[in-house]
């Protein structure tokens, strides 16, 4: 694995799963959808610029803190503040950064998350992603298997990735049936 691949793997495992939560947090803080998009892209840009992620011990808290600091930077630069921004900046900063119980990342959970993303795609898109990502075929091989032109496969690839990125943003990945019997958990009093 190259250093860049390792960084991508870190983002995929530790950052992307928290993106939807961060986006919700930002809209509660009063950001409009386009301001939120800009800020999220800026967050990834800052991550891209870092040479190592070794110092990140709690990725979720780190991500939120970074978003908060960027928001403050924006406020200072543009001098645009809304009442909700100010009220929520502090409160959200505290409330949302407590560690959540299910933060442990397991390979199994990640796999089921990835499979759920692929599973949720429209039929043709899904077929392309299954051949490419599950079976590891190239675009040309995928096109031949499905009887489609390479251009169509490329288009479906871009479309599928966009749909998956949207799920990453919105956090509504459909949950696949558990890959082993789930242990019953008792919740309540």
């Amino acid at each position, binding site marked *: 694995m190259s250093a860049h691949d390792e960084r991508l793997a870190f983002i995929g495992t530790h950052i*992307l799963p928290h993106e939807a939560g961060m986006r919700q947090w930002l809209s509660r803080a009063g950001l409009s959808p386009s301001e939120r998009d800009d800020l999220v*892209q800026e967050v990834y840009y800052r991550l*891209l610029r870092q040479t190592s992620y070794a110092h990140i011990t709690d990725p979720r808290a780190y991500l939120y803190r970074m978003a908060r600091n960027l928001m403050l930077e924006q406020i200072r630069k543009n001098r*645009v503040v809304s009442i909700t921004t100010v009220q929520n900046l502090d409160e959200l900063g505290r409330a949302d950064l407590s560690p959540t119980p299910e933060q442990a990342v397991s390979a199994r959970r990640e*796999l089921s998350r*990835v499979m759920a993303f692929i599973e949720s795609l429209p039929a043709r898109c899904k*077929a392309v992603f*299954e051949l490419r990502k599950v*079976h590891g075929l190239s675009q040309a091989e995928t096109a031949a298997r499905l009887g489609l032109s390479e251009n169509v496969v490329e288009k479906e690839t871009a479309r599928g990735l966009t749909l998956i990125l949207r799920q990453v943003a919105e956090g509504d990945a459909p949950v696949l049936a558990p890959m082993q019997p789930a242990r019953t958990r008792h919740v309540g009093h």
Partner: protein
Amino acid sequence: MSAIDEQAAAYIAARAAGRWDEADQAALEAWLAADTRHQGAFFRAEAAWAMLDRASVMGAGVTADTIRTSPFQALAPRPRTVTRRQWLASSGLIAASVAGAALIVPALTHQRLETEVGELRKVPLKDQSIASVNTDTTLDVALGAKRRDIRLIRGEAWFQVAKDKARPFVVEADTVRARAVGTAFGVRRYPDGAEVMVSEGVVEVWNTQAQDTPVRLEAGGRVFVPYAPQPIRAEYAPDAVDRRLAWREGQIALDNDSLSHAAAEFNRYNSRKIVIADPALGEEKLVGWFRADQPDTFARSVHLALDVPVRIDDTRIVIGAE
């Protein structure tokens, strides 16, 4: 998600297509160099693309031949959605109950309306007009058979005027008059003149001391009329009119307004006054919507936006180092 994200996905797909050449690489690099947001979006899409490779363990031991029959022809059943008609039916129900609630508000006849500092009242008048009365305001309402007369003694009010051609609706502020038939407009008194802002319809504005013909103001129009007769000039500024009438929702809207203007606005509504300790700060420009009754929140915003010290105690709010 934005158009940038979609473009990033398209670049990833193109690069993974196996037909990537130097020209493509140059185009990608130019796109990335154009904007740090592009770089962020591309890095994110790249990470998601790489993440999907984890699915390859599911393919271990299974040859791709087993899914050779085009699986994409099987279409998923459409999810059941609420029809437009069902939706309309339920929203009609809500509208009906809201209208029902509005009927119990008592109307008032002929009287004086007063508000304290920070108070905001919305008062239905007997002729079906509505008066929204801003902070620290006094006005007299006289609804006669031939005229509807409102005397603004101090402060500011906004009127949603019920149509009645036979009875013009006239607001008086010292020597300034504003007349409407069926329309919505606001009038604010200042020490040296009155400001009229129109949100709907047409209003005629004049000064009783001047010989000029009335100025016609349409929706979005605004004019300041001095009590001493002087030429007046109306302007068309719908956004400014909206912002200046934000008080009807208990808000103060700032659009590149100076800190000293903002402080003066907040001080109209609150007994705990904002003091700008450092005069150099007074000209700093700010943008934002705030609750008029929360000067402390505003002060905290200023602290964040301008990075200046702010001290808040029970009697006053001091912005800037003393």
